Structure formats: C-alpha cells, structure tokens
C-alpha cells in the first residue's frame, strides 16, 4: 500500500518514476509513433485512456480476482479498453488511426499499463489508482510530446503540421525515421540521467 500524499502520488509519474525516462517502459510506441506530434499525442491519449480505465477497473475488482488468474484478467480488461480505443479512433479519426497502424492494438502489451496494474492498482484503492494512472499517463504523454516535438521540428520543420522553421531550414529526414527515434531517445535519456545525477549531488551536499 502506498502512503504518499495524493499530490505526490500524481507528481511521481512526471519525473521521479516517469515511465519513459526513468523506468524505460513502453519503448515500442515511444520509438515507433513519435515521428509527428499529432501521432505522439494521439498515442499518448489512447494509452492514457486505457491506463486510467484499466487501473480503475482493476482496483475496484481486485478483491474478487484470485491471484492465479490475475494477469489473465488484467489482460482481458486492458484488451477490452484497447479495442474500444482502436475502434473509436478508426471510426472518428481515420487518418490518425491509419498513421498509428498496429500500434494502437499493441497498447495491450505496453508494459506501462500491465506494470501499473500489477505494481499499483492491484494493491491500492480505486481513488489512489486513478491518481497514479493519471500521473503515469501525464508522464507518458509528456515524454511522447517532447520526443515527437523534437523529431517533427527537426525532421519536417513543422509542429503539429504548422511550419515553424524558416525557409532556410532543410529538414533532417533521419529524425522522422526509426534511426532518429533512437538517437533522440538516447540523447534524452542521457540528459535525464545527467539531471538526475546533478540533483542527487545537490541533495547530498
């Protein structure tokens, strides 16, 4: 059982336990769909939808589920919400659905979501699970936003499809390719570690 204050429960997802930069979870969508900000946000919102609803559901039915079948139950719950999200996107946002391709269904196997059920929702109250899921979602969306902004601005010279770089700018096509995802993520992880190290040093001194 977590004993943090509710605000701390929310804030931990932003930095201290940021799923992407600190826990290195959910790397597959992080690398695959961040070539444009709109895709990054869509993926982030879809995953958040699934994470928050699954967490609430799992937290509320946790007492009913025998331990032996808990993972199977979680997966069914998660898959349900993923399918809901997938169908909804296909019906109302066809271009984004097409751009994200198989990565929406793949949210089912996103470690952030199953990880939170196993690590948090299955042993905390509904309200607390909701806050935790909200925090993790925010952290995930922020990470995707940062990554996709860098990639879209450098790779296409645009942000959310709007031209932001001058006409002198030559797009770095590598940034919207998978290689650019790895390079950007690597640099961001390096910076995250550096920041973490400096904060720790400052706290220690």
């Amino acid at each position, binding site marked *: 059982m977590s004993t943090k204050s509710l605000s701390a429960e929310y804030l931990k997802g932003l930095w201290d336990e940021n799923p992407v930069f600190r826990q290195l979870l959910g790397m597959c969508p992080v690398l695959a769909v961040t070539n444009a900000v709109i895709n990054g946000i869509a993926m982030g919102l879809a995953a958040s939808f699934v994470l928050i609803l699954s967490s609430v559901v799992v937290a509320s*039915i946790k007492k*009913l*589920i*025998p331990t*032996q*079948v808990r993972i*199977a*139950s979680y997966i*069914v*719950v998660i*898959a*349900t919400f993923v*399918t*809901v999200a997938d*169908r*909804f996107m*296909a*019906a*109302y946002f*066809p271009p984004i659905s097409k751009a994200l391709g198989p990565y929406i269904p793949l949210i089912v196997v996103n470690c952030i979501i199953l990880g939170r059920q196993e690590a948090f929702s299955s042993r905390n109250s509904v309200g607390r699970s909701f806050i935790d899921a909200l925090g993790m979602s925010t952290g995930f969306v922020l990470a995707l936003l940062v990554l996709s902004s860098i990639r879209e601005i450098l*790779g296409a010279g645009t942000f959310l499809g709007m031209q932001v770089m001058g006409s002198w700018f030559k*797009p770095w*096509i590598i940034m*919207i*390719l998978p290689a650019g995802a790895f390079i950007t993520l690597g640099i961001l992880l390096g910076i995250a570690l550096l920041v973490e190290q400096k904060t720790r040093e400052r706290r220690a001194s």
Partner: protein
Amino acid sequence: MNLSVRMVVVLTAVGLISGGLLSVVNLLTAERIELNRLKEIEDAITQVVPGTVSSQKLYEEDKFTVYASKDASGQELGYAVYASGTGFQDIIVLMFGTDPAIETINSLTILEQKETPGLGAKITDQQAFLRYWKGKDIRQPLTLRKPAVGSPEELGATEVNTITGATISSDKVMGVVNLSLERLRQIKQEGKLASGDGHVN
C-alpha cells in the same frame, strides 16, 4: 467457493462483460468504419478519373480491383484500377484511371507507401512525380526517363520522368502500373468488365 470454480467464474465473468462491452462498441462504430473505407476509395476514384459521380466495382482479385466510373448521366468515363506491388522498402498501393478504351492514363495517386522520406516517398509528390503521368499514351508500355529532364514537354508520349535520386521507387511504381495495364486489357478481352451487373456504390 472452491478456488478453481472461483477462477473459472471470475474469468468467465470478466470475459462476458468484456465481450458485451465490445459488441456494443462494434455496433456503434462498424458502420462508420466501413463508410470511411469506402469513402477513401471513392475519393481516390474521383481523383484518378475526373468527373466521376458514381462508381461500380467490376472485377476483383488479390491486390487488384477494377472500378468503372460514371458521370451523372451514367455514361462510363473510364476505369479506375486499384493495385499494389513491392516498393523499395514496403508495399506500394496505388490507384490510376484510364479512358474506357484503355489508351491514355488519366491520373495516378499513391494510397499507401513506406518509401524513404525525402527520396522514394516523393512518389506521392505532384510536382516531382505524379504530374508526369497525366495523359500518357498507354497503348505501349510506359518507360522511365533517366536521368530526369527539366520540363514535361521534353518527354516522349510514353515517357515518365524519374524522381531525382529515387530511381528505384520510380521504377517500382512504373512496374506496378505496366503490369496492371496488361492485366486490365486481358480481363477486358475475357469480357469480365461488362458493367451493369456489379454492385453500385
């Protein structure tokens, strides 16, 4: 309650609730999703055969579909061909339109591709590639002009400009189009393109 019985009950319950929820979602979205799909094809047909008001699926086989496109009076304007083939990196899906006699190509559009951005992906670019296809004579197989020339006037009747730096992707598109044209003529000769008996969209 016995543990194994409880396990079965819980899983069944979870599955049932999930299934119920999903069927509701499906009911709500299925129609829209199908509409989206059809609209995409319709839009493409309108694009490759200008003036299309209605269209009709005439023939379908694996990765190859022929639509007849008609104007408001029901007059046949030509064929729209939906085809696909291997590109430089992944499958290229495209659609092109011809006149009813299959003598000239109307227009070409790329529906799906994963070619190298900035290079091969230029097959979707009007200025760099697609504009060169309009009105080409297709009684002979089309050919690519390499290296590319500056203006469309310099090209022969059956020649299409190559994308600078993306010879392979240009080549692949050319291959798909030529093959499809051959197949189109073949099935037309076989009389499989008789219109009127298909489903009207």
